[in-house]
C-alpha cells in the first residue's frame, strides 16, 4: 500500500512539474499570440501609412571601459548618449556594463564571442580583433547604417574596423603617443622640450643626476613600456617596419629593430625608469608623474584628461607639456613619424541586426554618439582626439587649454604616422612581446639580440599558421 502511495506521489510530482512547464509554455505562447493579435488589431485600427509604435519594455547592454576616476568624463558622455537613445527608442532601457579595457578586450569579450552571447553594443578593438569577429559573422555590418545616416565619409580612418570592404565598428577617437613633461621642472633648469635625440638623452642623464626619476615606469602590463619601445624601434628601423612583420617583409631581428630594443635597454640600465617598475600597475605610472617623482611620462594623448580640474593631475594644470621623440641618428624613414591610432571604438553584435527595435537602437546610438558635438566634447573634456573629420577652424575654436594646443601642434608637425604594433601583428606575437620579451629585457634576462630572435621565431610560426 505504502509503495503504491509513494509511486503515486512520485508520478504526481513529475506530472505536475511537466504540466507546469507546459503551462508556462502555453501561457507564453498564448501571450505571444495575444500580443500578436493585439498588435494586429492595432495595426488594423491605425492609419494605413503609420506603423504602430511598439512600446513594450526591452533591454540592451552596453559594455564600456569607462571605469575609474580618470574616465569619468568619458563615462558622462556615454551616459548622455544613452539618455538620448532611450528617449528616441520607446521601451528601451540600456544596461551599462563597465569592465576594465584589457579584461574586456583579451578575456571577457573573447569568451562571449566564443559562447555567442556578446552584449548588443560593446567596446571593440579594431585591428586585428574586429576582423576576426567580422570574418565569423559575429559583428553587425554598419555600412548600410552609416550610408543611411550620411556619415560614412565623415571618419578620418576606418581601416582598422573594415573587413572585405564592409565596416564593422566605429572608432570613438584617436590618439597619438609622445612625451608628457613637467614644464615647471624644465623651467627651473632653463630647459625647453628637446629638439634632438642627444639633447633628450642629456636631459635624461641630468634628471637622473638631480636625484629625480627621469621617466615614469610601470611595466606589470607589458603594453605600457611597449608604447615607448615601439616608437624607438620605429625610429631606428622606419615607421612602416612593424606592418611588414606579419607579411614577412621585415624581421624582428633586423639590426635596426634591435637597435630600438637596445636603446630601451640602455635607458633601463642607466636607471632612467623607476626601480621595481615590473611590479607596478599602469595607474602607478600616472601617479609617478603627477606626484612630481618622475619628470617625463611617455603616454598616449588620452592622458591629457588627467590634467584637468577635478582629475588626479589637477595640480599640474598649465605645468605639463608634450613633445614627440626627436630624430635618432642613422634612423630609417620619416623621423617625425608619430605613433597614432584609431583602434578603439564600439562594435555591435550581429544579433542586434535581427531585431528591428534593437537595430533602431543601434542606429540611434550611432547617430547620437558619432557627431561633431560629441567628438568635440571628447576632445575638450576628455582629451581624446576626434575620429571624425572636423574643420580645423572649429577645432582651433574649441581647444582652449595649452596642453591640448601643444598636443595638436605636435601632431600637425609630424609628417606621417604609424599604428601601434598590436594592431599589426598576430595575437601570439603580441602576447610574446607583451608578456615575456619586454619584461625579460627590462629584468635583464635577455639581450636585445635574443629578444629579436625570439620574437622572429614566434612571428614566423604565426605567419605560417595563416590559412
Amino acid at each position: 500500500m505504502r509503495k503504491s502511495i509513494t509511486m503515486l506521489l512520485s508520478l504526481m510530482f513529475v506530472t505536475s512539474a511537466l504540466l507546469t512547464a507546459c503551462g508556462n509554455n502555453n501561457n507564453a505562447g498564448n501571450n505571444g499570440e495575444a500580443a500578436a493579435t493585439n498588435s494586429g488589431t492595432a495595426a488594423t485600427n491605425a492609419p494605413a501609412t503609420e506603423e504602430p509604435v511598439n512600446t513594450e519594455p526591452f533591454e540592451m547592454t552596453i559594455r564600456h571601459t569607462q571605469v575609474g576616476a580618470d574616465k569619468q568624463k568619458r563615462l558622462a558622455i556615454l551616459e548622455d548618449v544613452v539618455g538620448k537613445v532611450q528617449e528616441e527608442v520607446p521601451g528601451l532601457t540600456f544596461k551599462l556594463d563597465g569592465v576594465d579595457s584589457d579584461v574586456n578586450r583579451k578575456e571577457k569579450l573573447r569568451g562571449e564571442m566564443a559562447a555567442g552571447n556578446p552584449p548588443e553594443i560593446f567596446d571593440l578593438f579594431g585591428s586585428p580583433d574586429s576582423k576576426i569577429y567580422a570574418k565569423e559573422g559575429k559583428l553587425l555590418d554598419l555600412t548600410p547604417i552609416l550610408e543611411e545616416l550620411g556619415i560614412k565619409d565623415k571618419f578620418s580612418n576606418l581601416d582598422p574596423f573594415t573587413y572585405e570592404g564592409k565596416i564593422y565598428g566605429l572608432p570613438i577617437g584617436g590618439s597619438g603617443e609622445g612625451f608628457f613633461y613637467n614644464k615647471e621642472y624644465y623651467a627651473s633648469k632653463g630647459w625647453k622640450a628637446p629638439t634632438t635625440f642627444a639633447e633628450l638623452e642629456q636631459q635624461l642623464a641630468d634628471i637622473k643626476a638631480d636625484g629625480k626619476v627621469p621617466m615614469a615606469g610601470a611595466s606589470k602590463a607589458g603594453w605600457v613600456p611597449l608604447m615607448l619601445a615601439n616608437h624607438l624601434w620605429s625610429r631606428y628601423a622606419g615607421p612602416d617596419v612593424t606592418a611588414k612583420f606579419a607579411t614577412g617583409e621585415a624581421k624582428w631581428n633586423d639590426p635596426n629593430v634591435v637597435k630600438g630594443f637596445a636603446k630601451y635597454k640602455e635607458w633601463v640600465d642607466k636607471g632612467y625608469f623607476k626601480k621595481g617598475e615590473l611590479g607596478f600597475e599602469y595607474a602607478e605610472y600616472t601617479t609617478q608623474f603627477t606626484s612630481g617623482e618622475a619628470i617625463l611620462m611617455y603616454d598616449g594623448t588620452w592622458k591629457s584628461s588627467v590634467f584637468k580640474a577635478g582629475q588626479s593631475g589637477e595640480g599640474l594644470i598649465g605645468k605639463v607639456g608634450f613633445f614627440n621623440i626627436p630624430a635618432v641618428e642613422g634612423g630609417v624613414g620619416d623621423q617625425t613619424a608619430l605613433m597614432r591610432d584609431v583602434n578603439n571604438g564600439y562594435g555591435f553584435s550581429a544579433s542586434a541586426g535581427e531585431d528591428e527595435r534593437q537595430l533602431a537602437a543601434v542606429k540611434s546610438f550611432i547617430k547620437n554618439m558619432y557627431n561633431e558635438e560629441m567628438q568635440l566634447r571628447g576632445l575638450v573634456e576628455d582629451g581624446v582626439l576626434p575620429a571624425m573629420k572636423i574643420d580645423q577652424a572649429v577645432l582651433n575654436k574649441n581647444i582652449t587649454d595649452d596642453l591640448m594646443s601643444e598636443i595638436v601642434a605636435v601632431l600637425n608637425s609630424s609628417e606621417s604616422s604609424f599604428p601601434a604594433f598590436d594592431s599589426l601583428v598576430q595575437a601570439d606575437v603580441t602576447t610574446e612581446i607583451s608578456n615575456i620579451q619586454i619584461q625579460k629585457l627590462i629584468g635583464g634576462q635577455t639581450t636585445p639580440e635574443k629578444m629579436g630572435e625570439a620574437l622572429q621565431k614566434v612571428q614566423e610560426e604565426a605567419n605560417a599558421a595563416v590559412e
Partner: protein
Amino acid sequence: MNKALRNPLVFILFVIPALTLFFVFFIYPIFSSIYYSFTSWNGVSDTVKYTGLDNFKKALGDDRFWVSVKNNGWFILFSVFIQVPLIVFFSLLIANVKKLKGLYKTAVFMPSIMSTAVIGILWGFIYEPNIGLFNKLLGLFGVEPIYWLSDERFAMLSILITNAWQWTGFYIVMVLAAILSIPSELDEAAAIDGATGFQRATRITLPLIVPIISVVIMLSIAGAMKAADIVIVMTKGGPAGSTEVMATYMIKYAITNFKYGYGNTIAVLIFVFTLVVTALYQLLFNRRSERIEY
C-alpha cells in the same frame, strides 16, 4: 520509504534531477573540453578542425607550459611542507590556550573570508618596495629594498606566502575542531603519567588527528593545482612569465591568442595532472591513515 526506494522506477525518478545537473555542469563540459582539445579552433569560428594529438605534442614540448607546471609544483610543496606544519603548530597552540580561544579562531579565520582581490591588493602594499612593511622591517637591519613582486627571484615566493596566509586560517579551524574532539581523558591520563606538553602533543594529539591532516593536505594539493586568482591579482603571471601557473597560462596563451583548441588541451592536462597527483597521494599516504576510534 526505504522500500519504495528499492523500486527502480521510483529510484530513477528521484535521481534524475541530480543526474541531469551533474551531466550538464560536469560531465558535458569535461567531454566537450576533451573533444576540443584535439582540434584547432579559434573559439569564434564555426569551423573546427580536427588535429589529433598535435595540441598535446605542442603543450608537452612547450617550455612556458612546463614553467607553469613547475610553479604549480611550488604551490604544492609550499603547502605540504611549510603551510601544513604551521597549521598543525598553530592549531596545537590555540587548542591549549585557556582564554580568548574564540578570538584567536576568528582572527586566523578572517583572511579566508576575504576575497583574493582584496588580499592581493593588501599584500601588494606590504610588498611595496619603498614604503611596504617588509622592506621597512628589513631596512631596520640595513637590508637594501627587495623588489618582491618585480624580481623573478622573489615573485613566486611572495605569492606563495600570500596564498598561505589566506588559507592557513581555514585549515586551522578544521584541525582545531579535530583536536578539540579528542576526549580530554586521554590527555589528562598522560599528564598524570608525567608526560610533558610536548610529549602529549606529539604522542597523543598528533597521531589522533592524522586523518584530518591528511584531508588538509589533500585539499591543499587540489587548491594548488587550480591556483590562478592570486597570481592574476598580484603579478599577472609576470615578471616575464616567471609566476605563471597552469590556469593562468591557459587563459593568457590560449584564450587571449584565439587558440581555444589549445586552451582546452591545457585544461585537459590540468585535469589529468590533478587526477594523477591526488591519486598518487591517496595511494601512497592516505590509505595508511587508519580510522580513529576512541
